[in-house]
C-alpha cells in the first residue's frame, strides 16, 4: 500500500526485487541507479548482508506525469534472501506495491529459483498478501552467459518452472550488460501503478 505524503504531495510506492542469492537483483538496481541517474535520488543505500547485499534508493519516474497533482516516487529495494534476515525482509516487504522476481538462468540454480519463489509467496502471505494478486514481473537473468558456453536453462523451461500458474509478464535479461533491465523496470512500474490506480480508484 503506497504511502501518501501530504506535506510534499508525493505518493511513495515500494517496488521490491526478490530472487535467489547472487541471481542479479543487486546488479539490476546498480544498473538502474547508474543508467537512470536523472531519475534517482542522490544516494544509494547499500547494506552488506551475509552472502548478499541489500540496496535501497528512490526512483522518480519522469514523464509519468502527476496523479491528481501528486508526484510519484518509487522506492526500489532488494531484499536479502537468507532466512536469518527476517527483520529486514519483513520491513522491506511491509506494504510492498510491486515485486520483480529475478531468476537465475544457470542450470545449476534451477532449484534455488523455485525455492526462492516459494519463499516469496510465504513471506507475502505473512504480510497478508497473495502472490497471485501482487503486481509481479519475472526476469530471467544472465542470458548472456550462453555465449561463454555456460549451461543455461532454456527460457521455456524456467517459465514452465516458475510461471506456469502465475502467468506473470516476463523478460529475458543480462543485468550485467544492462540488457532487459529497463524493460523489466518499466513494465513493473506499469503494473504496479495500474494496480494502485485500481485500488485507490484514481482517475488521471
Amino acid at each position, binding site marked *: 500500500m503506497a504511502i501518501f*505524503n501530504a506535506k510534499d504531495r508525493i505518493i511513495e510506492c515500494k517496488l521490491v526485487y526478490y530472487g535467489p542469492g547472487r541471481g542479479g537483483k543487486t546488479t539490476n538496481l546498480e544498473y538502474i541507479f547508474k543508467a537512470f541517474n536523472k531519475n534517482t535520488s542522490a544516494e544509494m543505500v547499500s547494506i552488506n548482508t551475509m552472502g548478499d547485499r541489500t540496496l535501497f534508493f528512490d526512483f522518480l519516474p519522469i514523464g509519468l506525469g502527476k496523479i491528481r497533482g501528486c508526484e510519484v516516487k518509487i522506492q526500489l529495494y532488494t531484499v536479502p534472501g537468507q532466512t536469518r534476515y527476517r527483520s529486514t525482509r519483513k520491513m522491506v516487504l511491509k506494504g510492498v506495491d510491486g515485486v520483480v522476481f529475478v531468476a537465475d538462468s544457470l542450470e545449476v540454480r534451477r532449484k534455488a529459483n523455485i525455492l526462492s519463489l516459494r519463499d516469496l509467496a510465504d513471506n507475502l502471505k505473512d504480510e497478508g498478501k497473495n502472490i497471485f494478486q501482487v503486481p509481479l514481473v519475472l526476469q530471467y537473468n544472465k542470458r548472456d552467459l550462453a555465449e561463454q558456453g555456460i549451461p543455461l536453462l532454456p527460457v521455456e523451461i524456467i517459465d514452465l518452472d516458475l510461471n506456469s500458474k502465475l502467468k506473470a509478464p516476463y523478460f529475458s535479461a543480462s543485468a550485467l550488460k544492462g540488457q532487459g533491465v529497463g524493460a523489466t523496470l518499466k513494465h513493473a512500474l506499469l503494473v504496479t501503478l495500474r494496480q494502485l490506480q485500481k485500488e485507490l480508484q484514481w482517475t488521471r
Partner: protein
Amino acid sequence: MSGKVVLTGGLKFTSLADLFQIIGGNNSNGTLRINSQYTPDPGIIYFLEGNPVNASDGHLRGLDAIYALFGRTEGNFEFIDGKVSVEHAIKKSRMEIVLDALRMIDDGVIKKVEPPSTQEILIGRPDKPEENKKTGPSVIKGPAIDYLYIVDEEDFYDGKTIVKEGTYGKWIWIVLEGKVKIIKETRGGPLSILHLGEGCYIGTFSSLLFHDYERSASVKAVGDVRLGLLDTQRLANEYYTLPIEFRGMLASLDRRLKKITDRAADLALKKAGLSLPGKGLEVVVQSGSKKEDAYAIAEGKAYVIRKTPKGHLPLLELEKEDFFGFLPFMDMGQEPRSASVVAQKDLNVRKLNTAELQAAHSGLSMAFKGMIFNVCTCISYTTKLAFFFSQKKRT
C-alpha cells in the same frame, strides 16, 4: 520549540523502523522518546527535517544509541514536535540506518531488550534442589531499577535481619546489590521461601495504605547487601490516583502472595492446610484457557487449583473482592495459563474492565510497574515451590 506531543503509541504495534519512515516521510522536526519497562532511562532520538541527527540511550550517544534502541520491541514512544538544537552527530541517511539496524538485529549484533526470561528470573530451580546445591539457591531477579524513586541507600551485612515478621513497618526497599532471603516463621522453625536479587522489592502495596501494616515474613541479608529506600510517599500518591478497581486488584494481589506463601509453608511442614469443599464445584476458569477476561468476586468463594501428577492441588482460596482471570500485564504463574479456578454454584462475580485496567497500568511509573511485576514473579515462584513441596510430601 512548540514542545507538543504529536504522536504516541506502542512499539509492539508501530516499530522503530516504521516510526523512522513516518517521521522521515513527513520531514518532521522534533524529539522521539522511547520508554521501556525494562530499562531505566528513556531513549531519545532527535530529528531534523525527517532525518535523525543525534540520539542517546543510557551511556550511548549518536548512531550507537540509535542502533541500541532498535533492540527495543516493547514499550511506548512519543514524538514531541519542534525544532531541536543538538550537535549533528549522525551523517548516515535514515533508510541506511533502518536497513543496517535490522540487519544487525538479524545478525545478533543488536541485543533485543525484552522482559527477563523465566530462566533469567529463576536462577536455579526450586524443583531440583540438588542442582541448587551446585549453583546456590534460586534467586529471583527484578526488572530494571527506577533510580528516580530511590531516596536513600542502606547497607546490611551478611545475616542481618532487615524486616522481622509480625512487626509493623511501612518502608519499601529495592535490592540494589546482593541478595536477601524471605523467611516464614513456622512452628517447625524458620523456613526460607525465596531469595530476592537485584531489582526486587521488599514490601508490597499494603505499605502504601494508611492503616498499620504487619510484615508477613522476615527478610535477611545473604552476604552483604545494598538496598535502596523507595520514596513511599510518591508511590502512595501514585496509588491513590489509580481507579478503585485497580487498587482493589493490587490488594488482592497482595493477599494472593501472602496466601500462597502460607500455603507453601504448610505444604513444606506437611500440614493439611487448605482443602476443597467436597461437592458442587464447577470450573470457572479452565487451566490453559485463552479467554481474556478477568473478574472480581462479589459474593462467595473460589479456589485456585493446579493439576499435579497425583491429582488436583488446591493452591489458595479467593474471597470477596479478590480478582481472578486474565490480565495482560500480570503473569502470576497461576490461572489462566497454569492453574484453574473452581467455585461453588453460589459464586457471584463482577466482570472487570480489562481495557481500563490496562490503560491505568500503562500510565504508571516504572517503579510502580516494577513492583507489580515483582509481586507477580514472587507469586509465580512460590506457586512452583508449593507444587514442589506437595509432590515431595506425597512420595
